[in-house]
């Protein structure tokens, strides 16, 4: 199982921010230098979103209790 996740990156928030940036830019009521920095921010976020979309497939894990009743996550063989 690939553990390394893009820490701190929230896909939903990123996408919402991109939407917001696009709308803001499309409104036209914005200063050019601000537009440039928004454009940069937007393209960076989109690249991250794209990367998240292409994240590799993980194997399924199972949540079970051990004999002491503690919860544990295990990679499972359920997936063929």
């Amino acid at each position, binding site marked *: 199982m690939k553990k390394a996740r893009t820490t701190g990156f929230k896909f*939903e928030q990123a996408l919402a921010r991109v939407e917001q940036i696009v709308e803001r830019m499309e409104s*036209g009521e914005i200063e050019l230098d601000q537009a*440039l920095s928004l*454009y940069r921010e937007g393209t960076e976020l989109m690249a991250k979103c794209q990367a998240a*979309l292409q994240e590799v497939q*993980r194997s399924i894990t*199972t*949540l079970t209790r051990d004999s002491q009743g503690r919860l544990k*996550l295990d990679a499972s063989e359920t997936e063929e």
Partner: protein
Amino acid sequence: MIEDNKQLILTVSQLTADIKRILERGIPRSWVRGEVSNLTLHSSGHIYFTLKDAATQVRCVMFRSSAQHLLVLPQAGMQVIVQGDVTVFERAGQYQLNVGQLQVAGQGELAQAFERLKKKLADEGLFDEARKRPLPRFPKAIGIVTSPTGAAIRDIINVARRRWPGIELVLSPVQVQGLGAARQIADAIAAFNEHGAVDLMIVGRGGGSIEDLWAFNEEVTARAIFGSRIPVVSAVGHEVDYTIADFVADLRAPTPSAAAEICLPDAREVAAQLDDSRARLANALVGLAEGYGQRLRSLRKSYGMGRLADLCGRKQQQLDWLADRMTRQSRAYLADRRHAVERLGSALTALDPDNVLRRGYSICRDAAGKTITRAKSLKTGDPVTAQFAQGRAAMNVNKVMP
């Protein structure tokens, strides 16, 4: 007297053995219909209850080996049909029905139990729309409470992987039918909440009879879903199957596959949306730049700008004029000065004594070298020197004529 017929006197055990033999051999395995009462679930897994009708009753036991196959736990008051053998429990001197199979008598009974629980939970507010939580639009990890071997888990994995390849799926394997299934489902839901590994849950199973799905109609399952901090999507059976779990869940999916579809956005759609956003962003930037260009051009052409240009032109003109004037003036001044210098030069030339001498005049000086300008200052015989343009001559005064 009685003592004499010793062969006729039985022990309790002998009698009981006779009863047992007669009852157990004489009554074939039978199906019996009746109403359940005095139901006890023993920790051993055995179930004890009484089956009765209007006039009579019979004690029943269902041992764990049979009870564990039960789909629906009978409830007091429920009409059931059981199949069993009459046995004698010697120690208590009681006969009982050793139940091998138990069915709720007709769909009506289950429907009633369903409606009773539905009403009870509805009254308690477990189905209130207001308490249903929105599902995360992009869940990071989904917990699945279902059987590890059923069709449901395969369907969910397939659809989830297709829609969002990177999704983390965590299975909590449970039994989805039979006695104890509801408890396992409830525990699994609680475990996900305790562990916190997922931000969304799918609870369900594939299709089956109403009895097969019964674990999802039990109160313990409903309360676990209600108590979950993590949003729950129910996915029980087929499209037509409605269970209590469906009413409590934050969202009901008609099937397990549909649950995976509801829980996850399609990565291809999102990618297309991203492409669209990218294009819109670029267009917006270009449009914005064009807009500014336009504004710049129109500003340049504006009256105010024109005025400024005019002003600049006028100032330029004034400047040119001043420059011209200055050049002209300075040129005239220089010429004037030059003339003055020339004039002075000629005046100076005119005053040069040498020039006078060249015209034939001469300067006469006395013995001391002083220029003589009056004859009166001389006496006869005084030596004087006359200077000419070239050379000098010494002479003496002959006569003074003042």
